[in-house]
C-alpha cells in the first residue's frame, strides 16, 4: 500500500465533462427529428435500418456521451485516481464519439458501406481512448470498493459491447461473414445490461444513499450483484453462441431477476429517504427504476411465454423501457445535479470572496426541472404507446421527445451562460 501513489487531486477542468453534457441533449432532438421524418415505420421492427439509426442516436449520442463524460468527472472522487491529460483525453473521446454517432445513423439510413467504415473508425478511436484512459485509472484504484467492482464489470462489458459493435460494423462496411442476428442480441444485452445497468448500479450505491440520505444498499448486493450479472452474461452468451436455447433462457432469467432486484431495492430505499425536501431529480430516479423494473418483468414474461418473445412490439417496448425509461431518465436526472454543482464549484474556486456566487437553485430553478421532467415522462409514455399503436402515437411522441430534449439542452446551456457571465463580470 503506497499512499504516495494515491492522487487526491481535485476535479478536472469544467470544460472536460461539460462538452459531453452540452452535446448530448441535442441527440434527443435529432432522434425526435428522425421520428418526425420517417414516422410510424420506425415502430415496425427493431431490426429495420431506420430504427437502428434511431437506437444509436440515443445510445451513442445521448447515453454513451453523458456516461463517459461523467466517468471522467467522478473517477477522481469515487476511485481516487485522476485520468491523465484530461482536456486532450476528453477531446479525443468527445469528437470521435459525436461524429461517429452521426456517421453511424447516416450509414443505417443510407446503407452506404463507406459511412459504416467512417463510423467504425471514428467510434473505434473514441471508445479506444475512453476504455484505455478509464481502465488505466480503475486498475490503479487503491481500494476495491463495491463501486470499483461494479465499474470494472461495467467497463469490461463496454469493451465487449464495442468489440461486437465494431465487428457488426465490419459486416455492413466490408461484408465480413458473421452470425449477425446472434451478435446483435449479444451487442444489445452487453450494452444495456452489462455496461449501462452496472454503471448505473455502481454509481447508485454511492449516490442514492448519500444524496437522498437513505439507508445504504445491502452489503451482499453491493459486492455481489455486478460480478453475478457479469458471470451470467458470459454464461448466457456462451449458450447462445452454442445454440443451446433452453440453457440460454435460464441464464437470462438470472439477468432479469438481477435487474429487477436492483430496481426494486432502489425504489424501496427511495421510500426510506431521510431528506424530506422536494428534490426534482428524485422524480427522475423513480421513473428510471420503475422503467427498469417494468422492463425486467417484461423480459421475464417473454421467457415464460415464448409467443411474447416473437412479437415485434414486445421487443420495442423492452428497448424503449430500457433506453428511454431506465437509462435516459437517470442520465437526465444526474445531469441536473452534476452540471449546476460543477458550475457552482468552479465559480467558488475562482471567484471566492470577490463576488457573490449564484447558488445551484439560481443556476437552475426547480420549476424548470419539474416542467421538463413532466414532458420527459410524457415522451416516455407516448413512445411506449407508439410501440403498440404507431399510427396514433408516433407524432405526439415525437413532439414530446423533441421538446423535452431541447428543454434539457437549453437548461444546461443557461447554466453555462450564467457561469461565463459570473466570471466576466467579477472584479479581477
Amino acid at each position, binding site marked *: *500500500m503506497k*499512499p*504516495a501513489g*494515491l492522487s*487526491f*487531486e*481535485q476535479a478536472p477542468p469544467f470544460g472536460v465533462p461539460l462538452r459531453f453534457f452540452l452535446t448530448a441533449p441535442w441527440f434527443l432532438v435529432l432522434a425526435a427529428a428522425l421520428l418526425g421524418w420517417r414516422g410510424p415505420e420506425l415502430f415496425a421492427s427493431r431490426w429495420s435500418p431506420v430504427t437502428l439509426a434511431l437506437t444509436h442516436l440515443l445510445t451513442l449520442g445521448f447515453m454513451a456521451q453523458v456516461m463517459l463524460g461523467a466517468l471522467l468527472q467522478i473517477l477522481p*472522487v*469515487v476511485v*481516487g485516481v485522476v485520468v491523465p491529460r484530461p482536456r486532450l483525453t476528453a477531446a479525443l473521446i468527445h469528437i470521435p464519439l459525436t461524429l461517429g454517432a452521426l456517421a453511424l445513423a447516416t450509414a443505417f439510413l443510407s446503407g452506404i458501406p463507406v459511412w459504416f467504415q467512417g463510423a467504425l473508425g471514428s467510434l473505434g478511436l473514441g471508445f479506444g481512448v475512453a476504455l484505455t484512459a478509464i481502465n488505466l485509472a480503475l486498475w490503479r484504484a*487503491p*481500494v476495491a*470498493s463495491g*463501486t470499483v467492482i461494479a465499474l470494472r464489470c461495467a467497463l469490461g462489458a463496454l469493451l465487449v459491447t464495442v468489440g461486437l459493435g465494431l465487428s457488426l460494423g465490419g459486416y455492413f462496411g466490408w461484408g465480413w461473414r458473421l452470425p449477425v442476428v446472434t451478435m446483435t442480441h449479444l451487442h444489445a444485452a452487453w450494452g444495456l445490461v452489462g455496461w449501462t445497468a452496472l454503471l448505473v448500479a455502481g454509481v447508485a450505491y*454511492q449516490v442514492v444513499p*448519500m*444524496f437522498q*440520505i437513505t439507508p445504504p444498499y445491502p452489503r451482499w448486493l453491493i459486492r455481489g450483484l455486478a460480478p453475478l450479472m457479469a458471470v451470467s452474461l458470459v454464461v448466457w452468451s456462451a449458450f447462445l453462441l452454442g445454440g443451446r436455447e433452453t440453457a440460454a433462457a435460464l441464464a437470462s432469467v438470472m439477468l432479469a431477476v438481477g435487474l429487477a432486484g436492483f430496481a426494486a431495492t432502489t425504489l424501496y430505499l427511495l421510500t426510506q429517504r*431521510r*431528506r*424530506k*425536501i*422536494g428534490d426534482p431529480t428524485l422524480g427522475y430516479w423513480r421513473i428510471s427504476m420503475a422503467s427498469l423494473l417494468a422492463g425486467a418483468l417484461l423480459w421475464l414474461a417473454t421467457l415464460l411465454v415464448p409467443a411474447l418473445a416473437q412479437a415485434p412490439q414486445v421487443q420495442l417496448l423492452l428497448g424503449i423501457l430500457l433506453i428511454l425509461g431506465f437509462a435516459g431518465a437517470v442520465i437526465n436526472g444526474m445531469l441536473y*445535479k452534476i452540471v*449546476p*454543482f460543477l458550475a*457552482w*464549484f468552479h465559480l*467558488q474556486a475562482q471567484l*471566492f470572496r470577490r463576488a457573490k456566487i449564484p*447558488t*445551484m*437553485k*439560481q443556476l437552475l430553478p426547480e420549476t424548470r426541472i419539474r416542467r421538463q421532467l413532466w414532458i420527459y415522462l410524457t415522451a416516455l409514455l407516448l413512445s411506449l404507446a407508439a410501440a403498440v399503436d404507431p399510427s396514433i402515437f408516433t407524432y405526439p411522441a415525437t413532439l414530446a421527445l423533441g421538446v423535452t430534449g431541447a428543454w434539457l439542452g437549453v437548461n444546461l446551456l443557461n447554466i453555462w451562460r450564467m457561469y461565463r457571465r459570473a466570471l466576466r463580470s467579477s472584479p479581477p
Partner: protein
Amino acid sequence: MAAIAEFLAAEHRGCDESFASAEEAAQAGDLARCRAVFQRFQAEMERHFQKEEDALFPAFEQASGNAMGPTRVMRLEHRQMRETLAGMEGALAGGDLADFLGQAEALLILMQQHNIKEEQILYPMCDRLLGSAVGSVIQAMRDLAAR
C-alpha cells in the same frame, strides 16, 4: 476490524441527519427552528473536522510520511465546507431561506463527495496503516470531543 472507518462514518451519518432537519425547517419556512437546528449542525461539523485535523490526519501523516497527499486535499475540502457553512449562516442571519436552501444544495454535494473519498479510500487506508495504533487514535478523537 475497520475501527476508524466505522467510528467516523457514523459521525458522517449523524451530520447527514442534522443537515436534513435544517433543510426541512427551511423548506417549511420556519426560520427560528432552522436557525436552532443549523447552529447545532454547524457545531457538529466543526467538531468532526477538528477530530480529523487534530488527531487523525497528523497520525496518518506521521505513519505514511506524507503530509502533502490525501490529507492536504481533505483539509482544503474542510475549508471549502466551512466557507459554505458560513455562507449559509449569513443567509439565515439575513432571514433569506431561499438563499439558504440554494447554498444547502451545494453543501450536500460537497459533503457527500468528501465523505465518499474519506469512507471509501482514506479511512480504510488509515485503518490499515495505523494498525495497532487505531485504538489510541480513536481515544484521542474522543478526548478532543470531551474537551
